[in-house]
């Protein structure tokens, strides 16, 4: 009897050691290997879904980089991020076409639009759109940056001065999100629109995969912008100050850093990113007011998955979410309408195994 108890105890201890080892493995290199393995499997076994997933991931990445930046520096969940992206997409649409919804049909409100520039709508680089949309995107980015700074002055700064908690900030941004969506519905109604109607040019990739040329453009935008934001954060004076503020705003203040100005710059960069991300979202899907809010959940999942405050994390997180969503649909048991639920499953798994995210700092 005593021998059995002793053996049992030994086995239990051994088991506990194994569990601990497994825990360390899965919270450390294991989770990276897991995602890498799943990614490779998807790349080989479900190449079509993988490629579309990368495009979905690119749109998410552009949004998530801005979100993670705002979350890191300002320390609150910017619930208006998805709707801001869609609003930016509509602003670009307006700058390009001047169209708003009229009493019966659409009416052109502006006497002059970007489309009136010479050859502005003539497709470039085999894409579906001309350089006019790129200018429209830049204008949308500038307007969003200004709007974010104004909203910070009117809404968030008073809350900061009052020392409000993060829940108050989140609810305030949710209010702004709803206001933005209502404005989009008023001006452009709820039906879907496109920057360029009609059939869009495609590109053949190796292994017999054909995707829209626009989608390659979306992927490249994410691939260029993610390292750019990384360089800003880690190589420039402003970026270092933003990271310092994310670490410890009180110490930033006593170091002589003008924290108000850093907050403004954070919103400006966030607004510019939202401008680009929004246009890419509309290119990938369409212009539709409620699309922004739907995107919010995978956006937050990407941000948390990658580790809050880390642009490279947001990029990788977005890719994981994007690819998994698309690949999961091909497995057959999940209706495409439920694909956003995949983001939650990954998120829960991540919070369970490694709460700080893939690239998040230890706390």
């Amino acid at each position, binding site marked *: 009897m005593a021998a059995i108890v002793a053996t049992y105890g030994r086995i239990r201890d051994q088991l506990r050691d194994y569990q601990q080892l497994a825990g360390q493995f899965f919270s450390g290199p294991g989770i990276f290997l897991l995602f890498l393995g799943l990614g490779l499997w998807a790349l080989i076994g479900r190449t079509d879904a993988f490629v579309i997933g990368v495009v979905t991931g690119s749109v998410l990445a552009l949004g998530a980089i801005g979100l993670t930046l705002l979350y890191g520096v300002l320390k609150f969940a910017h619930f208006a991020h998805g709707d801001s992206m869609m609003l930016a997409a509509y602003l670009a649409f307006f700058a390009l076409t001047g169209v708003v919804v009229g009493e019966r049909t659409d009416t052109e409100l502006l006497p002059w639009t970007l489309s009136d520039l010479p050859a502005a709508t003539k497709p470039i680089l085999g894409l579906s759109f001309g350089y006019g949309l790129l200018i429209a995107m830049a204008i949308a980015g500038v307007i969003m940056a200004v709007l974010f700074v104004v909203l910070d002055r009117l809404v968030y700064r008073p809350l900061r001065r009052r020392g409000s908690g993060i829940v108050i900030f989140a609810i305030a941004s949710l209010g702004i999100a709803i206001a933005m969506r209502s404005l989009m519905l008023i001006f452009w109604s709820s039906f879907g629109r496109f920057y360029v109607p009609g059939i869009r040019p495609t590109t053949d990739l190796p292994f017999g995969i054909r995707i829209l040329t626009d989608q390659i453009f979306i992927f490249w935008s994410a691939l260029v912008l993610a390292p750019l934001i990384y360089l800003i954060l880690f190589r420039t004076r402003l970026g270092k100050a933003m990271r*310092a503020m994310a670490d410890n705003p009180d110490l930033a203040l006593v170091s002589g850093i003008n924290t108000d100005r850093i907050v403004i710059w954070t919103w400006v960069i966030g607004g510019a990113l939202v401008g680009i991300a929004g246009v890419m979202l509309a290119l990938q899907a369409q212009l539709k007011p409620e699309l922004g809010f739907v995107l919010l959940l995978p956006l937050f999942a990407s941000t948390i998955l990658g580790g809050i405050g880390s642009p490279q994390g947001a990029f990788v997180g977005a890719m994981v979410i994007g690819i998994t969503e698309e690949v999961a649909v091909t497995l057959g048991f999940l209706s495409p309408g439920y694909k956003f639920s995949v983001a939650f499953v990954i998120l829960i798994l991540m919070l369970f195994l490694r709460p700080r995210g893939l690239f998040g700092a230890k706390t």
Partner: protein
Amino acid sequence: MTTVLEASELVSGYGEVEILHGVSLRLGEGEIVAIIGPNGAGKSTFMKAVFGLLKVKSGTVHLAGEDVTGAGPERIVRKGMGYVPQSENVFPSLTIQENLEMGAFIRRNGLHQRLNEVYELFPDLALRPQLRAGKLSGGQRQMLALARALMLDPKVLLLDEPTASLAPKMVEDIFTTVRNINQNGVAILIVEQNAKEALSICQRAYVLASGYNRLEGTGPELLASEEVGKLYLGA
């Protein structure tokens, strides 16, 4: 001796709660002055009020003859006063070098020269400038915090309990460093729990109690004073 920092009849606190009821203090050029007193005496509060982190209800703060009462910390930093908070005084996810760069954020030129000067004062930090500050030990962090505050070449340095919760060996090192900094011409105002040690390195000291000035004198005088001994040194 010229006065670099003078606070007179300072009244301040947190929100509605008044902690300081009129504290006065003078720091001369090149001096080390200590503030000692029991818990809740208002030592740290006094530092924060002087540095513009708390609202000053009445009284004045003069830095090198200029009235800086109510000026925000970022303006006071520009006038040549540095401040090292008691805790959370480094940026953990930034590297040592980046921490120092943040200390010199408002400096427009001569950053590299100043970095080298500060690294000379803190050779340990110069060994691994790319190490994240979060990986440093308590004592090393305190050194980095001191170094960060020196990046702007301040005339006056406010130190809030730099030796709190450090090992005795480290306490020794910190005091040696403080003395070195002082010998380079920086006037230092130091709040210390470690009263005996503080009194032995300072020229003069103030004893605060319940938000008022209680005593004032040179280090040796206060060390010998029976009242200080009874009240704060546990002798």
